[in-house]
């Protein structure tokens, strides 16, 4: 009984990645993509998204759930990119400068977000989600009316024809793939963005190292039981704010890396989807609201984007309509998030019940 219990536990715990594995196993042959094309696409998407998804790990460690507030970081990154474009600084230097400009902004946003989330304990996820919407409004106001009027923007190419406000699409040609192609490597026709992966690798090492620091330990303690952590003298509120600040800054860098790969920026939309897709990818990797690892990040990105790549083609061959695949992808990202939240609540309830049954003792359990 114990063994079958273990197996069913394994299936329950890994239900989401398993479903994705099955879906992609079915869809890959139908899509008729060649392996080399798939590998190339996956490498691009890994390099694009890994940073954004990794930025979610630290708030989960601190018990604040999935940080939907990471879009604030993405906004900061985009503001940095707009300035760099305006000053016409190109290549990796441009990316670096964009990161430097946007860091203080991201720290400020993260700090404010952290303060708000501390006031909404236990409801961090929904609060950060709505906070993202709210800040989106502020961002649009500033970029649409402030830039070119209050904030000096020189380049006419960036501005709307009325003289102020940034255009819908900002062209990042000067920086396009500058990081990806910094160290060129081509194996069997597949291009590998070495520099980007090096950066991601360094970042993974940072996360691993961070877990071992005193601050990381404090975050884990805070995440598991705030009351206990506080009574042990850990400054819980400060720790939580720091975790959000780190996440926001990393999301800001993540967005810069993402956009340099894409090459164009939808000034008013790019950041919106950053949060939802990153979170969905992490959850597909088998992470939960309270537990996530680096392994979850990479499995998640691979599985999630594999389905993304193949589903439009599979949809086209199966149903004669590529739109169905696109529909499927949006449907799935929100569905996965909803499923993960429900599973999390359900598991917590189960754990609580088990703990109580244990406390009640064996003799009472007969009935």
């Amino acid at each position, binding site marked *: 009984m114990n063994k079958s219990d273990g197996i069913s536990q394994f299936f329950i715990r890994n239900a989401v990645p398993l479903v994705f594995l099955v879906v992609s196993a079915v869809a890959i042959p139908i899509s008729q993509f060649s392996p080399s094309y798939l590998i190339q696409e996956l490498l691009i998407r890994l390099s694009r998204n890994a940073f954004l998804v990794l930025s979610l790990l630290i708030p989960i460690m601190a018990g604040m759930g999935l940080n939907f507030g990471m879009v604030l970081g993405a906004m900061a990154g985009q503001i940095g990119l707009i300035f760099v474009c305006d000053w016409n600084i190109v290549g990796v230097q441009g990316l670096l400068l964009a990161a430097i400009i946007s860091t203080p902004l991201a720290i400020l946003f993260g700090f404010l977000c952290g303060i708000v989330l501390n006031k909404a304990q236990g409801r961090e996820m929904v609060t950060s989600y709505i906070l993202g919407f709210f800040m989106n409004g502020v961002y649009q106001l500033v970029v649409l009316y402030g830039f070119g009027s209050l904030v000096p923007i020189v380049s006419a190419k960036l501005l709307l024809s009325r003289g102020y406000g940034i255009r819908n699409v900002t062209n990042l040609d000067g920086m396009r793939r500058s990081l990806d192609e910094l160290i060129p490597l081509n194996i069997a026709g597949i291009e590998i963005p070495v520099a980007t992966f090096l950066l991601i690798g360094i970042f993974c090492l940072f996360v691993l190292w961070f877990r071992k620091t005193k601050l990381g330990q404090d975050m*884990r303690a805070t995440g598991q039981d705030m009351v206990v952590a506080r009574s042990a003298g850990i400054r819980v509120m400060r720790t939580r704010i720091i975790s959000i600040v780190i996440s926001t800054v990393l999301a800001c860098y993540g967005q810069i890396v993402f956009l340099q790969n894409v090459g164009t920026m939808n000034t008013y939309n790019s950041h919106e989807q950053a949060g939802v897709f990153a979170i969905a990818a992490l959850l597909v990797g088998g992470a939960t609201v309270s537990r996530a690892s680096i392994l979850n990040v990479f499995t998640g990105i691979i599985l999630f984007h594999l389905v993304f790549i193949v589903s439009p083609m599979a949809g086209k061959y199966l149903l004669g309509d590529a739109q169905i695949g696109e529909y499927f992808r949006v449907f799935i990202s929100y569905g996965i998030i909803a499923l993960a939240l429900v599973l999390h609540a359900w598991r917590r309830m189960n754990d609580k019940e088990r703990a109580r049954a244990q406390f*009640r003792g064996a003799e*009472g359990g007969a009935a």
Partner: protein
Amino acid sequence: METTPLLRVEGVGKAYYSNVVLKNITFSLEEGRILGVVGENGAGKSTLMNILFGMSVIEKTGGYTGSIFVNGEEVHFRRPKDALNAGIGMVHQEFSLIPGFTVTENILLNRESLNYTVAEEVFGSCLRTLNRPAMTTRAESAIKKLNVDLDGETLIAELPVGHKQFTEIAREIANSSTKILVLDEPTAVLTESEADILLASMRRLADAGIAIIFISHRLNEVLTICDDIVVLRDGEVVLNTPTAQTSVRGMAAAMVGRKVESIAPENNEDTRLIGETLLEVDHLWVDMPGETVRNVNLAIRQGEIFGIGGLAGQGKLGIANGIMGLAPAGGTVRFDGKPLALNQPSAPLAAGISAVSEDRRGVGLLLEESIAWNIIFSAMQNQGKFLKPLAGGLVRVRDEAAICACAQRYIADLEIKCVNELQIVQELSGGNQQKVCLAKAFETNPRLLFVAEPTRGIDVGAKKVVLDTLQRYNREFGMTIVMVSSELEELRSICDRIAITDRGRIAGILPASEPSENFGILMMGTAHEGAQTA
């Protein structure tokens, strides 16, 4: 005196505004000794420990009087940190451990051993890394002092309850400055064998020079392990003696005392007929947070007033809530020979069982409604009373005149002090609210009535009315009453038999005429073997 005691408490008193909870407490504790502190709930133990540990609630409510000396120096703790720095470690009743951390991580929580890193030059010491090997050594040495079998690498979530307790204690010992250790009911959650190990560990610690204050309800344990015993009652030290000079009975008598039965009406000529078994409870368990019932067997007879007493947290409240379907429960309950469905609040009501909840404001009353509406609410909802047909029975509307008349009857009967029956219940005093609760239960004409903590937080006058009313309904209408109360004397004044709960079980059932200390012994868990008289 040749040596200065490690801890000396002199004339300490504490009042929460006008309510005096501690008076002139004096005792001392020497190095390597174990002091047992015993007393009923509300005797002042917690307040005393809060003062000793500098809990903020004491400062916030005006501090305390008297003085405390540690090593001969007067101290005045304003924060728990002050107490910690002075070498006082406290293990609380509820666990403060982090479930996903290992034993080692918990023992050294926020006192981890750290390594230097370059990053700390920029961002401060919070970026030092943990020195795992050093932590393991420190935790192991603390565990060794306890002499228990505890693996530092196990997660807390996977440990049995007893080992969690050991982890807590190890945490206090790992702090090398700890000289005085306060253990607040550490054995309450332990099995007997675990408790034995704990007691042995305490002795080892004492031999190593740590002074221990041991708070427990289990008099046998206190007698076995302690060198000195302090018994508190109503905020005063009523007994302060070396263990050798007292006994379980002596302590129980000191604790319970012989209070004057001021509110108790005489059990006058008893012409009642105590009938057959009305309610039979078999292997009941109830999952009520904080009042877990593990295994209760009871038989309550028709027409009696049955009392359920016991200390807080031992399950007395859970019994009533479980039978009424207000908390998840299991086992079998038979009412009047028929099985009663559990976990369905409507089942007991339909069978003729009503309850007056201990949670007057939360469960008992609709606070923003009138007295009349409150009194008739249950009867109308469950029994269709106070409704009259309209339009040939198509709809039924409330019969306002009957509702008012009924409310007025109860207001006069139970002496409810109010403007009129339409006054909002929220505006009434606690005692009058309680009377409304009673009226509400009476109006359903129950055959069996559960009354939980009927006199909690109400004044003496109202107390008497409430108790008299319960007795009158029992005498006049033959209503069987089960009264759950923490006040032993109150139970003894009106009940026929009293059951005492202990660790979620019935420790024993005694006639109310037995002397107080026999109940005291049951409460303290000293007689929990073989006393199942039910």
